[in-house]
């Protein structure tokens, strides 16, 4: 009633009508702007997130190296007459590295200054490089070669501009003398940024300049293979049964409710399940990709079943009826006609489930996959880290150099996820069929 009265009043005064219309249109514009603002704000979060990660991590793909004249002096290396591979392997290469940088700056003499000088270079990393060189060619011993050796993380951070060169710059760990030496090296062109191969070939390390992702990548591959091996057959079989064979009864209802609920259970609870059942009851090894794969399989199973059922449902009944009419049994109808037609959808769902499993972290912490593991795992039973757990571990390390590595690890993880999602999209595009 009131609105009718208002309308009458407005009709009487056109100015009021116009004012009211203007207000309503303004409200309309405001509302629309709010919606657009929400979308843009959400997208800008995504943008900020990605820009932060990339700007922090992109520099981790290169590494500072310093060129030094290395004199392979058997006396410095602690080598006797024995030149067997074992003796060569256990020689003192760290001493060689220290001697090399000291010979570059012969003026430096005091003990304290010498110690500061060796902080420019990664003694362990350079030592490993020299060890590899000598093992490959024992003839190097006694000669002098100019070699590029890995710089220390402090130098690395300065070279990449993450830490300023001014006195008292945030996070500065090099003093003026050390920066002076670094400048001398730069002037002669003996400092360079090269592609960081160690990041892709090594396992974890306490030394940021030596820490690599390969161990975690292999661990993730093992875990995901186990997950796929378990999840795919069981998921497809469940989806086929529920969609094609199951009679409508209590049991089927129970299974369906169960699957929907499992999809919403927090993943950390699955970790507790893995800990209590796989580790404590069955006594499987801690930190092993096998257990990780099993837990991840249970987590992604509901996703795969739900996706599989949707794909099976999309196959039109006429296909089934035609096959049945030709005398095929129900199993033959499903195995020979329905399932092959639904396969692209099932595979898409599986890939997305796997992508989700690849990013899962919390349940893996529960089953002990947070250990510090240097070796590259050789089988699914060896202790291993996986990519997201490696991110978590590195994120906990206080060094500035690890921030960069963490971001790089995230970039690698996101690249894998993007590849998997791209594969799923292409698969859907190529094989999608509208009936």
């Amino acid at each position, binding site marked *: 009633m009131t609105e009718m009265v208002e309308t009458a009043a407005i009709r009487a005064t056109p100015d009021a009508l116009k004012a009211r219309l203007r207000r*309503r249109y303004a409200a*309309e514009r*405001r*509302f*629309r702007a*709010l*919606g*657009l603002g*929400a*979308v843009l704000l*959400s*997208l800008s*979060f*995504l943008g*900020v*997130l990605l820009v*932060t990660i990339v700007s922090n991590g992109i520099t981790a793909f290169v590494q500072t190296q310093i060129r030094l004249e290395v004199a392979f002096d058997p006396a410095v290396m602690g080598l006797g007459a024995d030149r067997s591979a074992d003796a060569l392997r256990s020689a003192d290469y760290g001493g060689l590295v220290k001697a090399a940088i000291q010979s570059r700056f012969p003026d430096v003499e005091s003990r304290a200054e010498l110690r500061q000088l060796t902080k420019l270079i990664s003694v362990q990393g350079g030592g490993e490089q020299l060890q590899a060189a000598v093992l490959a060619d024992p003839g190097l011993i006694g000669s002098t070669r100019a070699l590029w050796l890995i710089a220390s993380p402090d130098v690395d951070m300065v070279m990449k501009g993450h830490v300023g060169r001014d006195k008292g710059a945030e996070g500065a760990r090099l003093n003026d003398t050390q920066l002076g030496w670094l400048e001398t090296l730069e002037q002669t062109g003996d400092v360079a940024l090269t592609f960081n191969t160690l990041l892709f070939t090594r396992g974890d390390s306490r030394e940021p300049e030596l820490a690599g992702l390969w161990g975690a990548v292999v661990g993730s591959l093992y875990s995901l293979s186990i997950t796929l091996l378990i999840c795919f057959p*069981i998921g497809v*079989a*469940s989806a*086929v*049964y529920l969609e094609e*064979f199951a009679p409508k009864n209590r049991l089927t209802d*129970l*299974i369906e409710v*169960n*699957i929907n*609920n*499992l999809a*919403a259970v*927090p*993943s*950390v*609870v699955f970790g*507790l*399940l893995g800990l*209590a*059942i796989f580790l404590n009851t069955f*006594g499987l090894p801690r930190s092993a990709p096998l257990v990780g794969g099993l837990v991840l399989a*249970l987590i992604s*199973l509901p996703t795969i079943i739900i996706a599989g059922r949707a794909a099976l449902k999309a196959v039109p009944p006429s296909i089934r009826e035609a096959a049945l009419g030709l005398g095929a*049994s129900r*199993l033959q109808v499903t195995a020979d006609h329905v399932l092959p037609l639904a396969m692209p959808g099932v595979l898409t769902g599986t890939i997305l489930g796997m992508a989700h499993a690849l*990013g*899962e972290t*919390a349940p893996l*912490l*529960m089953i002990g996959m*947070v250990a510090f593991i240097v070796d590259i795992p050789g089988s699914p039973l060896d202790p291993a880290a996986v990519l*997201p*757990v490696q*991110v*978590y571990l590195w*994120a906990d390390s206080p060094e500035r150099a690890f*921030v960069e590595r*963490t971001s790089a690890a*995230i970039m690698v*993880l996101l690249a894998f*996820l993007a590849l998997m*999602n791209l594969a799923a999209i292409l698969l859907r595009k190529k094989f999608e069929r509208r009936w």
Partner: protein
Amino acid sequence: MSLVILTAVLLLLASIGYHVGRSRALAVVGGNPRLLHSLPSYHGYYVALWCGLPALLLVGAWLAFEPTVVRTLVVTTLAESLGGTTSPEQLSLLYNEVRNVASNGHTSASPAVAAAAEHYLHIRGVLFAAVVVLALSAAIAGLGLARRAITAALRTRNRVERVMDALLVAASTVAIFTTIGIVLSLLFESIRFFSAVSLGEFLFGLSWSPQMAIRADQVGSSGAFGAVPLFAGTLLVSAIALLVAVPLGLFSAIYMAEYAAPRFRSVVKPLLEVLAGIPTVVYGFFAALTVAPFLRDLGASLGLTVASESALAAGLVMGIMIIPFVSSLSDDIITAVPQSLREGAFGLGATKSETIIKVVLPAALPGIVGGVLLAASRAIGETMIVVMAAGLSANLTANPLQAVTTVTVQIVTLLVGDQEFDSPKTLAAFALGLVLFCITLVLNVIALHIVRKYREEYD
């Protein structure tokens, strides 16, 4: 490794069985498949199943029961050799030591343990040899018997299909067994926890400090297990997350469903979904590295003290993460509201926003509430963001600028690194897990119920 080889050999035998069965069936009818009841390949599958299935089931049973059997045998002899005075707890500790000695080749101080380790390896070796022999003979016997049973009239298709049916049912019950496994493992350990700490203290106690003293005579050796600060912290972080996600998600959904041009929508919708696909550990790193310092500096410039691990930072980032849950669920529901309702409102002279607020949203409300509840259960169960950004101190506070801890953070910190399973400290994690499981389950059930019950039927 030897298990992998055994399985591979069994699978190889089964595939040989397939070819044997197929050619046998064809040989029986002199190469004329029309005389067979079933297609030759079904005869092949029939033999393969007889060959592979019993043997693989045997291996499965061995896998499931081997640890228990070995344990019982070893512990019995160990107890005898120690004179029968050791308690069950000591025996289980000793058994772990035996296993370590046996698997890593450590030398043990105690001769009894060393002997038990040898005994352990011996039993395992014998058991494995027995399983290999039994499985291989079962496979070969199955192959031979099934091959002999093949006749032209044998209804292999029906039999194979019955087995396949059973396998399909078995596969679909895995989901049920997973749920049962979750409930049982949580309940079992929680009951052990509640025998040490009363349920009332756990649910209503106001102080949480699960650190147990190492020596029994130390002060405060019992620890405090009042979980209210954890519940409050979880609630605070989730509430902040929802405060971020619900308005942003809902307005995004409205814009995408009602205003956006199809091209804008087709680009932006997948981009928004990317937010849901980013692993939570990445959000955790983002929260700890970027958002928390930003908030701290912002707070400092405003004269507020913001903890470096604040509930606000964790909640904010978690909110960003669940935006797509709210937006895509609401989007679906808003699009499902029939066009006729909108047209009716337009016809009465309503502007688009008036239509949306007065007509579309009320019709879509139950679905939206359901979506928000699902997002809330996601926020409560979220772990990595809070582990990395919310901190460990159990403050009972409603101030979002302080550090709080949540149920999931405590589950992780209680269990990571600690391997003993008898202290209330580790068992508390299972009790917290049970609470978490129940809360998310109830939220999901309510959400689905609301969606189903209050859904408007337009057809």
